[in-house]
């Protein structure tokens, strides 16, 4: 997996959509992943976004880090087949600490390719 984008000088996340647009303009295939529902407490709120390109570079986040890999893999598929998809992730309480969904929560993520 590629390194995430650097933080801005003030320490905040880069605006993922601005990164997506820049990558599009560079001619890369790009997908956007958005947290659309959460159950229980979850590390990133509804509306959190991660953008990625066809090589797996990404910016932003949709979790504490546990589902990013799966989301990026699905995003690369979405860039290839041009179809959006809804992904569900649920984690049992025992696994929750290991993977970062500390609550045993569930998240639903919408993944869509950016098209011309």
């Amino acid at each position, binding site marked *: 997996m590629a390194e995430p984008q650097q933080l801005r000088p*003030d320490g905040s996340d880069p*605006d993922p*959509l*601005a990164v*997506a*647009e820049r990558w*599009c303009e560079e001619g890369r295939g790009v997908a*956007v992943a*958005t947290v*659309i*529902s959460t159950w229980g407490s979850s590390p990133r709120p*509804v*509306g959190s976004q991660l953008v990625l390109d066809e090589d797996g570079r990404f910016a932003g986040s949709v979790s504490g880090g546990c589902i990013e890999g799966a989301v990026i893999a699905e995003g690369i598929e979405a860039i290839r087949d041009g*179809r*959006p998809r*809804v992904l569900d992730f649920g984690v049992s309480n025992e696994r929750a600490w290991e993977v970062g969904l500390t609550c045993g929560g569930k998240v*639903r993520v*919408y993944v*869509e*390719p*950016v*098209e*011309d």
Partner: protein
Amino acid sequence: MKHPLLHAVLEARTRKRPLVLVTELGSGRQWLQIEGEPASGLDPGVSEAARDALRRDRSETVELAGAGYFLHVMSPPLRLFVVGAVHIAQALVPMASLLGYAVTVIDPRRAFVTGERFPGVTVVTDWPDEALDAAGLDARSAVVTLTHDPKLDDPALRVALDSPAFYIGSLGSRRTHARRIERLAGAGFAPETLARVHAPVGIDIGAVTAAEIAASIVAELTAGFRKR
């Protein structure tokens, strides 16, 4: 997402326009609902739900007419204008920043306004009325005056009361506030307009220290936005 739509979202953000990106989850079709503008081609019921989400500042998934939609609210940060670079401001500014406010400190007394006292926030040394006029107060803006000095507080309150700001607060005892209300009434403000000024500022938690007063102010500010 179509690239032109992505561009439109970013452009509206640059203009600091609150917006909702509406996605029909089954089909992937999308619409942009920008505050105060019609969303062309969007079902009126869905548009209504999007505007409601915008008002509540809350992204959510909804089922409408048998279809699932994600309403993604992308609003610029709430703005807080603090008039008076005083001791309480030094506690209030970081607390409000933590709550996500874009904070501006206004004080024409240059000695008060140094970057060291207020790291990381916008500081303005114009007169409060000029600074607030230039800022263009809207329904996502709040104004808190902290100087106790009518020369500084009153002009700020006059601009705030003429605006749709969701919260206006003014530091000062009941007596100070009674005199302030008299002056503003004399300037032509109606009693129901003057009732918008929260004073004594902050919810009553028996605050004593500057930090406690700041905590009571951010609590009232939050209520002012969430319970509006």
